[in-house]
């Protein structure tokens, strides 16, 4: 049973990877829509970007950075990945159509590219990086505290 699931996931991974060879930030499919990399595994490697809440694996962030927050330079320095992403997040939302989706609007991710996001992260973006957001004229909403 699990081997079947693995093989299916393997298929999808291969398919996903084939597309990823397109390279760059947002993935462009032939005649398709620009989108972020899809996480290719489910375990503890999954991490969420603290600014835009995009979910990918550690390796994917390290190699391709965050498609919504390129200025965080995650692909340049692994420290950026460690500081700007967290494994502590709740829930997953696969966002296909950010422009029309109500859920995306509610979660304030309506301006990001299609991809897998999380509903909430538990930590705040560290101060230095918040400064970088301001410098790049980019909005940052810290997680709600009760």
């Amino acid at each position, binding site marked *: 049973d699990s081997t*079947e*699931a693995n093989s*299916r*996931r393997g298929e*999808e991974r291969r*398919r*996903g990877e084939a*597309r990823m060879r397109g390279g760059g930030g947002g*993935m462009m*499919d032939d*005649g*398709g*829509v620009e*989108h972020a990399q*899809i*996480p290719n595994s*489910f375990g503890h490697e999954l991490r969420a970007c603290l600014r835009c809440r995009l979910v990918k694996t550690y390796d994917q962030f390290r190699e391709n950075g965050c498609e919504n927050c390129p200025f965080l330079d995650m692909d340049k320095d692994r420290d950026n990945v460690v500081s700007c992403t967290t494994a*502590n997040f*709740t*829930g*997953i*939302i*696969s*966002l*296909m*159509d950010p422009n*029309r*989706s*109500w*859920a*995306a*609007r*509610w*979660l304030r991710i309506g301006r990001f590219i*299609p*991809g*897998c996001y999380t*509903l*909430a992260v*538990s930590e705040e973006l560290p101060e230095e990086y918040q400064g970088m957001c301001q410098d790049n004229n980019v909005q940052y909403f810290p*997680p*709600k*505290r*009760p």
Partner: protein
Amino acid sequence: DAGRGSRSRHSIPMRDEEEDIDEIERQVRERYARSTHIEYGEEAADVEQQALLPSVKDPKLWMVKCAIGHERETAICLMQKFIDRTDLQIKSVVALDHLKNYIYVEAEKEAHVKEACKGLRNIYASAKITLVPIKEMADVLYVESKNVDLARDTWVRMKLGVYKGDLAKVVDVDNVRQRVTVKLIPRIDLQVLASKLEGRVVAKKKTFVPPPRFFNIDEAREMHIRVERRRDKDSGEYFEMVDGLMFKDGFLYKPVSIKSIHTQGIQPSFDELEKFKKPGDDMNGDMSSLNTLFSNRKKGHFMKGDAVIVVKGDLKNLEGWVEKVEDTTVHIRPKISDLPKTLAFNEKELCKYFKPGDHVKVVSGVQEGTTGMVVKVDGHVLIILSDTTKEHIRVFADHVVESSEITTGITRIGDYELHDLVLLDNLSFGVIIRVETEAFQVLKGVPDRPEVVLVKLREIKSKIDRRTSAKDKFNNMVATKDVVRVVEGACKVCILSHLLLYLSSTLLCNPNTVTFIFPLLN
């Protein structure tokens, strides 16, 4: 020079004035534009959120049943499918951590949902698709922010396993790996452990949970269990290792995942805390742990007029009286006159304050209903002399209010009263010497070996009511209610409450509230 200086101070040259005005205007605009923006960001966040509520023009949310445990996988698969064939018309898919067996799909029409789910391994072809009412849509995306106050010395309770429900204290936190090390009173069955280590297969008695007991190295060694002394690389402290378990000072130090412990609303009972505090423990250390304990407890009722003391924050140790209570804020009138008339505190920062000599009543906890006088204040714990039993009882200051009420205590439950002679289930008998909230304390046994047993109401079969008489040392007739003097033994003058014509002619006395069994000296 001076002239020019004064001129520049008092007046600005015409030309410069204009430029300056423009400059000033620009600065003012900038300054105030920025500040309104900031204000907006903080306060209007909630209002903005309200504006984002779903309308009839928005796509709808559909709840779809999927394979249990594969909710995230399904959401990600659907994302992949969307990328592969962009004719998928769904807008988003949500997989919630706490909702098993279901995912939410956002789409304009149910047909879109059906089409998207076709061919997916984790969604059965016949899967139910339910529309979520528009009013409930925002609730679907609600995430409860878990206020995890995990710090050293916090009290937690175990969720699973042998130690389920047991109180534990956090000694180390690893946020990265979401694990903590907790300190527990071990529940080890040394026999089973010894057999296991020797390679003997033991039939696992699943229902048997060993009672909590401090770990004793010598006991373990007696059973031929190998105890190693190892130094933990992270903390640098020495532990005794047995079968992969770490012990120190008799406690078990166990690394567990954060998910397997309850962190909120932990209210350790007095007994649990006493057990944790091993004799010889540092009182100071204990006080600080008690303090964290109190900041997490649900505080008792503060009422107007209560004397309180501040226990947390900069105003620690300030005494005062409660003026007003509002939800979780308590306003107090401080004792020191130099301070403002009332100060507001969070109820977690205050603790009720009593002095020896105060007369109080216990309003919650095991001792509920008892009244008495405070004889000693020991941090958060009061020692009270009970009016009824004249015993010293220890209670938390939170559980007590000042009161001039004096209860005589409960003297009867059901048919049975204090000092009744009763027949217990197993054909033994005794005298009720104390009535507690749910049970009786019964004095049984024989002379020289009195035994006090805690007995529930249903364990009492009946009352024994006998009118008998016996003889005393000097061959006088003795009957109930006579005043007698005990010639041998600790007591002096007592009132006979019962005579038991048992083999040894036991005589039960009752001086004040204490009951003894004495042999009848014939």
